[in-house]
């Protein structure tokens, strides 16, 4: 039972916090607080940016052996000009508020890593379509915002594009499509598309 002879630890902390100091001036407290605040804010953002690097992303084994290996065969990894797009360039928004929201969602990914939801290739394959559709959905909702970080439609030089690209881009954007509508599979292997496009699969002759 609480004796209440001397105040409890919580009450004492509260009293320390709310009573004015007799040693330090307002100016001292304000400027020290300002500087510490800058350091904290900088440190916070530095830590967030550390989690926005390719090295960090592939530190999880299920990312390194599955999606990273597939990405290495694609144009965003290796191309004529050497201009690359790494994991955060496509999957983490650059605007601060969207970025922080994505980081909050990423705690779910952290949970699944610790729970081992994708710890074997078989588990990954089972989930591949669901994971892909989740990313496609967020890209459609944001109108392929991350693609547009680098690819600006108004700056496209159609003279330098190939025949099918010119037609695809002009018609596609006129129809109100967004980048991800046509460019699925640009960076990672497409999932088994049975539910999305049943024509792009193999027939079954009835033997087993």
């Amino acid at each position: 039972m609480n004796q209440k002879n001397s105040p409890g630890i919580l009450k004492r902390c509260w009293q320390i916090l709310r009573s004015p100091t007799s040693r330090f001036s307002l100016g001292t407290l304000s400027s020290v607080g300002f500087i510490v605040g800058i350091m904290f804010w900088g440190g916070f953002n530095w830590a967030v940016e550390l989690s926005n690097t390719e090295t960090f992303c592939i530190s999880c084994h299920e990312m390194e052996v599955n999606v990273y290996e597939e990405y290495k065969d694609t144009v965003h990894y290796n191309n004529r000009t050497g201009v690359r797009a790494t994991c955060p360039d496509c999957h983490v928004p650059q605007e601060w508020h969207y970025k922080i929201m994505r980081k909050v969602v990423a705690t779910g990914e952290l949970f699944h890593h610790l729970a081992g939801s994708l710890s074997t290739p078989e588990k990954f394959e089972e989930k591949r379509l669901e994971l892909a559709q989740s990313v496609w959905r967020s890209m459609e909702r944001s109108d392929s915002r991350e693609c547009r970080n680098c690819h600006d439609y108004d700056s496209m030089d159609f003279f330098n594009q190939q025949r099918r690209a010119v037609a695809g881009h002009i018609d596609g954007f006129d129809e109100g499509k967004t980048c991800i509508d046509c460019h699925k599979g640009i960076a990672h292997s497409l999932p088994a598309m049975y539910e999305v496009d049943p024509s792009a699969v193999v027939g079954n002759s009835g033997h087993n």
Partner: protein
Amino acid sequence: MNRSRIFALAGATLLILAAGSFAQDVESLRGATELVDAPRLPTLKRWEPDQQPIARDFVQQPPLVPHSIDSYSIDLRSNKCLTCHSWANYQEAGATKISQTHFADSEANVLANVAPRRYFCNQCHVPQMDTDPLVENTFEPVKAIQ
């Protein structure tokens, strides 16, 4: 030794010497460089960019791919070629539809979708590079399809 054997030996020697004099015209794919020298690097060739369909040279020829297929992947999960060339997608994509011959398996049963033995398009259909033929030839298509 008897006479015919001497003649056979002489004839064989002459043949070998004659053949040896032609040996200078035979070159391996490395070119005329010695084994210890580094070979001259061949010029880099490029895939042909998107173009109009290419005419076939013989009737059963699998049509050549007239466009770039860089990074297009065909695996067990998905077939990139079919996202434009399947019967469901070809009209919207403005592409040639995959032939109905590709729906039959090896026992001539017609299947409900592309047969497994026709699934890997690249086994027969190839894009082109802008370069000379590997071997000079005078092949011509038959008049009927020219």
